[in-house]
């Protein structure tokens, strides 16, 4: 593992100067400033991957892209490069919170459009809290929905890694958004809380510690300072009313489908 300054030293002079000038220039955009801060604090990338990421960024800039677009393109070529979570400490189940609209859209797409947005949402709202879906067609349609798109971010319970990280009966949107450090959005963003199996039908998800490349342009990611820790941690945001400990976080590919779900799923209250 290597920190930013070590990696910078391995770049050739022109590349180093370019990276340095872009990441040292003052910016008025607080989100871009936070992303740069995260890059400088990253510890989870191998030197070769970090170097390749920065070189790609410079290459994209050379192709005429704006800095944020160049960074995004570079990131997308370097995702899931954080260390793989070792089998000995692999949690049995993961949890993730995504916007209800997003999951409904994934369900609609998995049905090739046989659901429209409203009917996909209705299915989710009617199925909340059920240990078993009301009918087999509902269950089979839901099973095909991806758990995320491109790259999936997930959390788990460190104390009870075989149990859902969302054990309470009710959660509010603001509680989840701030506890998982997902952003400070209007509290009318309804979230769905999914719990799913890491291993299913002999296929085990490859979990990785997240890095700045996985975070892409998402400014709420925070690099964990311990380079050898097997996973990352969220940074809870204000205004959560009582202190909430950082939650573990990992990433995996979007091949996982909802046939891994452990029911019931929950929908946050507004």
């Amino acid at each position, binding site marked *: 593992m290597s920190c930013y300054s070590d990696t910078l030293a391995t770049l050739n002079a022109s590349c180093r100067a370019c990276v340095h000038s872009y990441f040292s220039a003052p910016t008025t955009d607080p989100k871009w400033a936070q992303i740069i801060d995260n890059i400088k604090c990253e510890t989870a990338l191998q030197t070769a991957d970090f170097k390749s990421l920065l070189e790609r960024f410079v290459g994209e800039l050379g192709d005429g892209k704006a800095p944020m677009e160049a960074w995004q393109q570079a990131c997308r070529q370097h995702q899931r490069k954080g260390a793989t979570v070792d089998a000995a400490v692999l949690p049995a189940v993961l949890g993730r919170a995504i916007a209800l609209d997003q999951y409904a859209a994934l369900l609609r797409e998995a049905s090739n*459009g046989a659901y429209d947005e409203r009917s996909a949402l209705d299915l989710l709202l009617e199925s909340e809290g059920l240990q078993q879906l009301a*009918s087999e*067609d509902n269950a089979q*349609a839901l099973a095909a929905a991806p758990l995320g798109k*491109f*790259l999936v971010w997930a959390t788990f319970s460190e104390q009870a890694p075989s149990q859902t990280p969302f054990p309470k009966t009710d959660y509010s949107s603001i509680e989840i958004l701030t506890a998982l450090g*997902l952003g400070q959005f209007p509290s009318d963003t309804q979230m769905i809380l999914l719990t799913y199996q890491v291993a299913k039908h002999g296929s085990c998800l490859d979990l990785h510690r997240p890095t700045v490349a996985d975070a892409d342009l998402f*400014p709420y990611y925070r690099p964990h300072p311990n380079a050898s820790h097997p996973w990352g941690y969220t940074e809870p945001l204000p205004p959560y009313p009582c202190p909430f400990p950082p939650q573990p976080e990992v990433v995996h590919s979007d091949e996982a489908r909802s046939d891994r779900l452990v029911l019931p799923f929950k929908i946050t209250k507004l």
Partner: protein
Amino acid sequence: MTSDYAFLNEGTRQQLEQWLVRALSGQTPLPRVSPDEFPYLAIMRVEGLLDKQTRRDLYSACQQLVSEFVRTGKGSEEYLHSLLNLAVKLQILELAPSLAQLAQKPELFGHLAVPVQRLVLTTLVEFRTQPPAFWQSILPLNPDAFAGVVFSGVFSRSPKQAMTVLQHLPTRTPVVAAASGRLRRWIDTLEPTERRAAEAELRQLLPSCNEVVREMFGKWVPGAISANPVPQTQRQTKAQHAVSLLSKVIKQINPPLQTSCSRLAEAP
């Protein structure tokens, strides 16, 4: 968060459009709940923070970008996914005629990738502007890829007519399961007489459907033929054969009566 996007209220219409293009491609930080969230959902969060004039500009910028796509057919799948879904969220119904024309223009529509074609059709489903006849004209273009979305399009205007799409559904379970779930829930809302009629119609249609459809619907349609039909008893077969013969004879002398007899012969 409001102040993060105040620059959009202060900038020009052209700057807003440039921002929108970047945002739709995910090339600028957006208020996403999770990093993999579709950009259009985050853009709708931003929309709620804008002043009235900027919202109008956002609406017209989205409309213009969709019109550009309709004219040129250009754009990455990721960008078009967000653009067309944003048009749905903003309810830009003025776009429906041009999107419908695009879908019926083989020289342009045929050159689009299938997922993009389906995006265009999904947008029209969400607009709920197209009559069942439009969807019936779309189906032959690519029944395997479009049957799900065509089902949805017809269902949004006439659930009863949507049953006729079942025989074109592919064998992909998620598509069939979604269609089954939607029809089942619709039938559950009907009065008993209407319900029995709808179930009878399904029973009549299912034999012409593929085995995945027959199996899925066979689980809830009373008396439906399952994927592996149970052999009829010799007595049933003989009775139906007799009715069929009778039907042929009656056809010669009384056609209306013959129709009733044919239905009797087809009954399970």
